[in-house]
């Protein structure tokens, strides 16, 4: 197979012009920057669920595990606890981690495991041809909701703050430089990093125009205040709102789950004598 550094010469099957190309480019940029900062390429692991986002594993020459629908975060947690030296990234979609696998997302944030979770949020189920998802606005017209969906979107950033994530950000797939910078910071953050990436879907929910008019970059200020973070996060509730802020909303330091669970681990070759010790106590 022909390949050079991060690229694989595989056929890309995203729709022409898909905003996922922007996310792919930002991830490549971020890994290259991090490589220059001394993180070996082999240390990166990317897990995905199922959906348009997941095709990314075929376009990146790094360790990947293309998992089941909704289980990208669960897979990643196992990888990270098993080997905390790895830099574990998750690419997941709104359908994948806000619908099917939301329990894992919430609990991973709660335990502050050192992962970088990137949600390709196109606000619909695209690969299954355009049904409403957890972040589709109320009234979303899709093939399963021809008269408009009856559910309102929830705000994933608000949920992540409530769950205990220690790095909460929003990016925009069309702003690759800004997103690159966010991903670098998210990987460098020790703890659970979460980036909701606005990812317009040309075919089923084309939000390009809308986002281009409304998205603005946050100026970094006091990132340690949850109250201020929530205030900013509530500027847009994924249904209505005037402006859509992107950037980092919240950042905090907390012990990480992977580090805590690996504390005091010692490599033991064979347990024969310990087992016999236990057996001796049980007679």
């Amino acid at each position, binding site marked *: 197979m022909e390949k050079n550094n991060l690229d694989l010469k595989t056929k890309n099957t995203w729709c022409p012009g898909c905003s996922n190309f922007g996310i792919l480019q930002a991830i490549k940029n971020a890994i290259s920057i991090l490589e220059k900062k001394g993180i070996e390429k082999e240390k990166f692991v990317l897990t995905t669920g199922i959906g348009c986002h997941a095709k990314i594993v075929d376009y990146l020459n790094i*360790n*990947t*595990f293309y998992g*089941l629908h909704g289980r990208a975060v669960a*897979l990643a947690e196992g990888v990270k606890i098993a080997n905390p030296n790895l830099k574990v990234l998750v690419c997941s979609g709104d359908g994948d981690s806000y619908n099917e696998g939301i329990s*894992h997302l919430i609990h991973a944030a709660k335990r502050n495991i050192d992962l970088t979770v990137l949600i390709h949020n196109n606000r619909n189920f695209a690969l299954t041809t355009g049904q409403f998802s957890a972040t589709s606005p109320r009234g979303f017209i899709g093939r399963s909701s021809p008269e408009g969906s009856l559910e309102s979107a929830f705000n994933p950033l608000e949920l992540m703050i409530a769950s205990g994530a220690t790095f909460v950000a929003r990016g925009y797939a069309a702003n690759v430089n800004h997103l690159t910078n966010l991903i670098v910071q998210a990987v460098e953050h020790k703890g659970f990093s979460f980036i909701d990436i606005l990812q317009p879907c040309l075919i089923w929910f084309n939000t390009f125009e809308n986002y281009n008019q409304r998205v603005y970059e946050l100026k970094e200020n006091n990132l340690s205040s949850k109250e201020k973070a929530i205030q900013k996060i509530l500027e847009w509730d994924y249904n209505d709102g005037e402006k859509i802020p992107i950037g980092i909303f919240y950042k905090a330091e907390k012990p990480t789950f992977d580090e805590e669970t690996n504390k*005091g681990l010692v490599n033991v070759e064979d347990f024969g004598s310990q*087992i016999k010790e236990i057996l001796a106590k049980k007679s």
Partner: protein
Amino acid sequence: MQKEFSILVGGAAGEGTRMTGQLIGKLLNQYGWRIFIYEDYQSLITGGHNFSVIRVSKEIILTPKKEIDYLIALNQETIEKHKNNLKKDGLIIYNSDQIKGEKGIGIPALSITNQFSGKPIMKNSALFGALAKVLGVEWEILENLLKKEFGEKAEVNLKIARAGYEQSKTSQKIEKLNQKPLSLLNGNEAVALGALKAGLDFYISYPMTPATPILHFLAQIRKNFKNVIVFQPENEIEVINAALGSAFAGKRTMVGTSGGGFALMVEALSLAAQSETPIVIVESQRPAPATGIPTYTAQSDLLFVLSAGHGDFQRFVVAPGDAEEAFYLTGLAMNITWKYQIPAIVLIDKEISEDTFNFDESIVEKIKIEEPILWDKKGEYKRYLDTKEGISPLAFPGEKGVAVKSTSYEHDEFGITTEEEENIKEMQEKRLRNYENLNNEIKNLEGVKVYGNKNSDKAIIVFGSNKGVGIEIGKKLNLKVIQVLVFQPFPEEQIKKAVSGVKKLISVETNASAQLAQVLRAHDIKVNDSILKYTGRPFFVEELKEKLINKI
């Protein structure tokens, strides 16, 4: 003294009957007697009725009997529920603070406990002391045991036990047998130790009876096993997916659950097959459908584990019948899953999980860590290299010059997604060749064991927790007894050999649809009849004997 006897200790949940049962077992173990303890408890935390039956014998026994020689009652309900099973010359030792007007030995257990300012649960020690005296146990042996078990807390317990001991009298002094005491282990502990011996790095589990104690045991013994991580996540779906992530990162990983939890894991079982990721799944059965009866037993998930998962794939399935087999087969499952990168399931049930068995430590040396086939670091790494044997060498993330690409999607040799017919066929056939390896492996394994009268033309066939009762009845009724230990790959030749010459074959199963017989028939093995029990309780020796006599 008789060749064997049984002691039942009963009371409400939270009264400590299980602990007392364990202490009685350990006490008589010191005299070289063989011990088996049956646990019967309900899904509640306080109240209700719990009991343990400690069967004590000169020879190894693996199953409970109905008939009781000594009934130790913490409350009135215990007497009412079990008096009918007490032998004519049996003896009741009871808490006379709560039970009045009973024959036998009444011990004011609560008054004694209060006298020494003990906690209410310590009243067990008074009855324990009384039983020890009845059996003529020397005080020093009891004293040493309580010191070993309770450490610094032994002092008050010893005073209470001593008072019970002194208020009781010896009826039949226990003989000291000339055989070495063996360890006492339940199947859950044996599963955990077997996995550890085979190099367990990571145990992940969500609580579900009767597999939960594996999680407790491993969390507690981590002090001694410093390289093992124990993780209790939010649900079984996280359990199995995180476990596959861990194995992908190179760690020997096991998960444990019961039928309902396994049902939630099934999609990822199929992922293990497609991505060729090693995993050991312990499935401890309880009665189902659905919630069923959480703290009781069944063998009704056999067909489920054999066929669970979407798609064409194989798994390695073993069904141990006691603690030693639980140790050995779990260790074997760990080695096999890493050797072939095919998922392995250890199928047990509540009786294997929670009953206590004698455990001969000589089995420990039979399990050693066997290394998987690793990448030779030559050329470019391909996760799904299409080898002659169908096994693709493993490399793990972090290794220099390697991109490990595991996937749930059909893929090419690198792990890149494919929808091309040629690739699909190639990979399916690679996996099929690997399944052939597994099928051949059965020739090296003891998939079947035969006991009893090997020349008899009448045989019973069992698996899992019916091993013990099967062997015991086989001996009594002069039958051949066949135990199936491996279900996938199916040891067809071994079973056909075992049943050759048998004119009447009866399966004995703790389920309602004769699932073992169904499996055997699917392999053209004639089963004439089945004896089934589906009340959540195991077969008691007397009960199976009666049912079998009517059938043969």
